[in-house]
């Protein structure tokens, strides 16, 4: 731990005057073609930023109609079929076209080469291809959703999806299937880059923890996505040609689909949350001006989560008719996967101890992340208890739980990361006041939206209900009211971030006084990232080292 440090971190940018470089990745070339044919990881990250932001607001629009419809117990706004298509669209868009790609493809793409002192990813053309594949998958899926829609939910449970649904199931799964290749290629690209292209001196245990998280997430992407592809193909085969795989009428087994689906879809939850955890692990040390507490444990916990995530899938099936013994094994394993998440939360909290804590905007998002993710994780402990899951499974309790993880966790972490690295990506600062306001509105709106859903769930309101008994109305109205606040919180950044491009103050290379190689190059970075390959001689997060002596 106490290895000799030969160079020291110089806090703040005072060592180097903030000076915009003449040529950066944004102004090096102009025109649509220069963007659509780029192989620069930074530009590809911006392409992804556009795509996933669009998808986020489309998925959000579906959620808005859902919440409006649930204001009344009789569901006056839309018909039952439309409602079913709306929640399916919301889930499909948000999971596959926002949550899974967002942090790896936007922040990961932009930062990975910068953080390891490389010029680009290992396979720049493959990186561009990934974006095209992703976009083609997204267009096909959107077309399927807009031209008639799909009403299976994002889970595609059989035999409903193969026998009963009369909607665009096959076009939708083709879209998702195609976008899966983008996930696999991105994951491979990241893994290879991290193995082969780290700057001299950047050992694994000197890597920023964001990269550990991205690495763990990439492993999941590469290993789990093919299983989803298989499951989707089998749905198509049964639906199109009546070959019995899942439908008991045709001699199939409906639970087989659930096993295949959750073998992908449980690890995928960690693809969503792990990179966001990585983001938070970068933000906290910077704004506490401290070393991360327990680097090795935090790094190992990312790998631990990735490994254990493959062995808990059947906890989605406790009431689906599996054997008691299998349920018990998966319950026990589900508790194990909570351990590494706990390690991270404890480490983040301990990092603040004796720090110099500055609640700038990214830090507000990071603290919000810890609070909401912790609540999501702790309610997960309730769901892992077989006796309780029996009651709350498939109710709004589950909805609230996974929105705490995916929205309170992953989206909050992404917003923190976007605000943290926005000055690096654009060279401009955004409004401190408006961004803090947005963080606050998102936090409050989120709590108001999803806390009532825990109560609703325990009362017994099932998920995916277009209408509901009148006694649930007041809680639903509270939830919808919260959602309207949340919506304001998500639209606000759109305005001040775009405004910052024109009116924001120049950020300088390192506005937060952060360690990390990405902050040692100008903002926005030049096309080749670094003028000369950096040499790394210290562990990351050496915020406490000073020009004089100083060992704590």
């Amino acid at each position: 731990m106490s290895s000799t440090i030969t160079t020291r971190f110089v806090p703040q940018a005072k060592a180097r005057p903030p000076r915009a470089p003449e040529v950066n990745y944004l102004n090096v070339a102009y025109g649509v073609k220069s963007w659509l044919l780029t192989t620069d990881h930074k530009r590809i990250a911006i392409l992804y930023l556009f795509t996933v932001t669009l998808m986020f607001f489309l998925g959000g629009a579906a959620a808005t109609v859902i919440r409006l419809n649930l204001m009344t117990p009789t569901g006056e706004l839309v018909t039952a079929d439309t409602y079913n298509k709306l929640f399916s669209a919301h889930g499909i868009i948000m999971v596959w076209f926002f949550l899974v790609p967002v942090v790896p493809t936007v922040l990961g793409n932009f930062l990975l080469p910068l953080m390891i002192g490389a010029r680009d990813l290992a396979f720049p053309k493959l990186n561009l291809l990934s974006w095209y594949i992703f976009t083609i998958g997204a267009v096909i899926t959107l077309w399927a959703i807009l031209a008639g829609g799909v009403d299976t939910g994002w889970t595609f449970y059989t035999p409903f999806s193969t026998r009963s649904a009369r909607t665009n199931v096959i076009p939708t799964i083709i879209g998702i299937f195609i976008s899966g290749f983008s996930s696999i290629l991105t994951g491979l690209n990241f893994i290879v880059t991290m193995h082969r292209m780290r700057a001299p001196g950047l050992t694994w245990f000197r890597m920023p923890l964001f990269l550990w998280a991205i690495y763990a997430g990439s492993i999941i992407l590469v290993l789990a996505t093919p299983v989803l592809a298989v499951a989707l193909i089998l749905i198509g085969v049964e639906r199109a040609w009546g070959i019995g795989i899942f439908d008991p009428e045709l001699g199939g087994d409906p639970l087989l689909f659930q096993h295949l689906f959750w073998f992908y879809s449980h690890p995928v939850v960690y693809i969503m949350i792990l990179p966001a955890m990585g983001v938070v692990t970068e933000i906290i040390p910077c704004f506490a001006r401290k070393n991360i507490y327990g680097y090795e444990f935090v790094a190992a916990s990312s790998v631990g989560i990735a490994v254990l995530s493959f062995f808990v899938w059947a906890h989605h099936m406790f009431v689906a008719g599996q054997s008691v013994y299998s349920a018990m094994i998966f319950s026990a394993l589900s508790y194990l996967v909570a351990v590494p998440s706990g390690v991270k939360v404890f480490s983040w909290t301990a990092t603040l101890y004796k720090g110099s804590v500055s609640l700038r905007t990214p830090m507000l998002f990071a603290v919000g992340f810890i609070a909401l993710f912790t609540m999501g994780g702790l309610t997960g402990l309730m769901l892992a208890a077989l006796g309780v899951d029996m009651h709350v499974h498939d109710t709004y309790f589950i909805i609230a739980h996974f929105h705490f993880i995916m929205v309170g966790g992953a989206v909050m972490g992404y917003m923190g990361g976007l605000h943290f690295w926005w000055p690096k990506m654009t060279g401009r600062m955004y409004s401190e006041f408006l961004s803090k306001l947005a963080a606050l509105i998102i936090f409050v709106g989120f709590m108001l939206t999803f806390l009532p859903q825990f109560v609703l769930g325990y009362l017994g309101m099932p998920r995916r209900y277009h209408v509901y008994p009148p006694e649930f109305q007041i809680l639903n109205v509270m939830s919808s009211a919260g959602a309207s606040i949340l919506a304001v919180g998500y639209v606000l950044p759109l305005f001040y971030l775009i405004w910052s491009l024109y009116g924001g103050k120049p950020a300088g290379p390192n506005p937060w006084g952060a360690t990390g190689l990405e902050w040692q190059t100008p903002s926005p970075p030049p096309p080749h990232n670094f003028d000369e390959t950096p040499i790394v001689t210290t562990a990351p997060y050496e915020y406490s080292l000073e020009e004089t002596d100083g060992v704590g």
Partner: protein
Amino acid sequence: MFAEVPLFPEQASTTAERVDALFFFLCAVTGIMAVSIALLLLYFAVKYRRRAEDDRTPRILGNKRLEWFWTISPMFVFLIMFLWGASIYTSVAQPPPDAPEVFVIGKQWMWKIQHPDGQREINDLHIPVGRPVKLTLTSEDVIHDFFVPAFRTKIDVVPGRYVHTWFHPTKTGRFHLFCSQYCGTSHANMVGSVVVMERAEYAEWLDSHAEGSLALQGRKLFLKLQCITCHSANSQARAPVLEDLYGRTVNLRDGRTVVADNGYLRESILYPEAKVVQGWESIMPTFKGQVNEEELIRLLAFIKSLKPGRTPVRTEDFPPPLGAPETPPGGNPKPPQAVPTNRPEGKSNRS
């Protein structure tokens, strides 16, 4: 206004009490964890707030002993949660042996219920208070889920197989019954009620809805479908005796053994070649497509009720159903007198 906000569901079964006890324990433990972390974050954020731009901080890298502590110690708490949860789950998986069995069939988008004494209902389930009831459930089409929040009981109703659950109601009243596995357009309307009644009231209800017991209905079906032809329990029988079969262990031709439960009997009716009993030929035709889920349940109820020596004798004439086995009924001396009209003239018809 907030006085009207419902916060906690009614508790109307023995399982509900157990589930709630565990839930309160979990709320307490996780609540303590959440509040401690929130308070620590708040305390650190205030106490160690940045006072000057050039604040300096001590270089703290961690403390292995503390880190191991917070890695290992939660596992002990988790172990309690796991064991407690598992104990409730296992007891819900084992119905009390004396509980009467009610059959439930889910279909898009209704619940069809058949009581042991033959009463049938749709979307309502009448049961007596203070006595356990076992449910055997299946689906005609897609996966549904039988969920009674007041009982804290939920089970996916999967097509092609039987699943079981049970509950012991402790309170009279009318409680929500929800389908909680998404099943298509009217998923949200696949709702009903469980009506828990006083014993006397329940007995009255049973009497007023009697239709002849399920087993009796099954017996009629057994004769009508010509099952009796082969499963005749006499010396010329071409199929195994079904008397006293339910719950017994059966030896199969391929050396396996199987317990004759609902699932096995169902499979043997729909897919007779799947598990053939030792010492018998696989000659039974499939009844898939000829009996629906409700009729299957009646047949099962009959087989279950069949005591030694009580296999019915074939006395009534039933028209054979479409696609029934073409072999003439055993013991019937006269073959059907179908008289063809287009005989060649030169041959005598007498013999």
